């Protein structure tokens, strides 16, 4: 049995609107092992993205423990959490979230600016990441010069360039046509199988979820 890399222990998350408490996750527990590809499915408002955000360290639980790669991230302060994210998490967003004024190369290089790598080393890493996603020949293109599928592949290159512990993907095919979506899913599958990346993916798409090794359903803030 592989090591447990994500442990969500009795986590609850509520949002507050004025004096009203809106519970999103209720006493939820989940364990993800190293090298697993987990798909989180469920209807809108079920808490999938909230759970993903908590695992990725961009949101904090109201209660419970969140141990990712051995660190209880709920206890980290803002600055330490930012450092932790840079070292441990690769993000893939639904709308790619590439910075439009930077080229593909520069977008992929961004997370490496937070490391101590030299410029030459960064260049080498970016080349490797863009080669993995098959876009080494487009490195000097700006996002607007790329198709949606290519943009998402650049975003995946950005997510893997620091060799993070986990990849989190929020509806990675949600804005893509069928062919591009298939390419992106194949790429994620390859990253999981070939490069042993642990992936947690939120999706509405059953076809996308089929690529995952484990599918978990959420409803009303609870795992089914």
């Amino acid at each position, binding site marked *: 049995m592989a090591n447990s890399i994500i442990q969500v222990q009795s986590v609850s998350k509520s949002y507050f609107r004025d004096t009203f408490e809106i519970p999103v996750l209720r006493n939820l527990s989940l364990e993800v092992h190293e090298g697993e590809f987990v798909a989180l499915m469920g209807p809108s408002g079920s808490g999938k993205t909230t759970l993903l*955000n908590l695992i*990725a360290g*961009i*949101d904090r639980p109201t209660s419970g423990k969140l141990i990712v790669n051995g660190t209880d991230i709920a206890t980290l302060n*803002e*600055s330490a959490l*930012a*450092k932790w*994210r*840079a*070292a441990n998490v690769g*993000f893939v*967003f639904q*709308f790619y*979230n590439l*910075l*439009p*004024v*930077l080229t593909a190369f*520069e977008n992929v290089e*961004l*997370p490496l*600016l*937070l*490391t101590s790598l030299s410029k030459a080393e960064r260049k080498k890493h970016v080349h490797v990441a863009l080669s993995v996603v098959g876009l080494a020949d487009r490195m000097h293109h700006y996002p607007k010069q790329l198709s949606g599928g290519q943009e998402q592949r650049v975003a995946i290159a*950005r997510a893997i360039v620091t060799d993070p512990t986990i990849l989190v993907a929020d509806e990675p095919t949600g804005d893509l046509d069928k062919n591009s979506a298939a390419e992106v899913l194949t790429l994620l599958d390859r990253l999981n199988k070939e490069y042993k990346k642990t992936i947690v993916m939120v999706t509405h798409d059953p076809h996308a979820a089929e690529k995952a090794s484990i599918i978990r359903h959420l409803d009303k803030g609870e795992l089914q």
Partner: protein
Amino acid sequence: MKIPLKYTVRNFKTRLLTTGITVAGITLVVFVFAAVLMMAHGIDKTLVATGSPDNVIIARKAATGEISSIVVNSDAAILFTLPHIAKTSDGRPLATSDVVVIINLEKTSGGLSNLTVRGVSPQAFTIRPQVKIVEGRIFRQGAREIVVGDAVARRYTGTKVGGQISFGGDKWTIVGRFEAGGSGFDSEVWGDSEQLQDAFNRRGGYSTVTLRLDDPKAYSEFKAAFDREQRLQQFEPKSEQQYYAEQSEAMSLFIRILGIFITVIFSAGATIGAMITMYAAVANRTVEIGTLRALGFRRRSILTAFLMESMLLSIIGGLIGIACASVLQFFSISTLNFGSFSELEFSFAMSPGIVVASLLFAAGMGFIGGFLPSVQASRLNIVNALRAG
């Protein structure tokens, strides 16, 4: 690690209009700010250039300027007995006893204006070597002849060489034109001091006496001898350069205070402009901020990036403003000198200090205008920012 500067710079291009308007506002304010400082510096420079550090001017202690100073003939004679006064080849003191009066003359641009007329001794051109005749000749002693400064010849009617002007109850023939190296003398008319004494009923004395020391380092010995002479206690010796610099103080201080007061009011508008631009930048790039934060960039990096953006905008505006203001150096204007109550022509003068002050002023506007939007950007909640798309 900071967010790369190219991210900031390239974002300017994505909103050229608002960036351009903000830069233009800051350019305008910095232009006015620099122009005011250049004007005050120009006056300082002109009047400081009027005096020579090797010359000593003696005026009455209570006098606020040359026109209100009187040195009677007998006191002037005592002055010339003091040690360390340089001598001419024929053994006379190297000094000029000046009679300074003000007349009214019509300007080429219309209207009357005050003009300084200075009666000087023959040695005046020796102890003030920056004054050079460039057209015609020097006036003759004992004749109603005058020479006019270059600025006078340009700004007053009937002041060309060969012409005549009336003052002191007589007509005076202009026999020459001189240049004085951009100093205050350029705005004066010079004639024979005895002729001026006669025309203005000042037979008994002069306004000031300016003399050259045989050794500039001997000033303290000269001053000690001056202080020991009981008959000269109503007078005060000063370095000529210091004397004219003091004459410019009130004028340049007035211009600086008024000018800076006005530009600070203007700057409020430009700062608000920068603030609006930066708030718009934050609003347009909320998702990008969320993404950068998710990738691991800290709040401080976001704050710095947006503050840098605001300050860079302002510094660009500042540089353009300074460049535009530099063109003013090619222009001369005249104003009433508070020290002499007469017209003084001067040029706008740029200096490294003005460049630095203007850039700091511009950067300050950028910092103040960009601070709140930058703080807002850095404090965005990551999840909310990512959802803003």
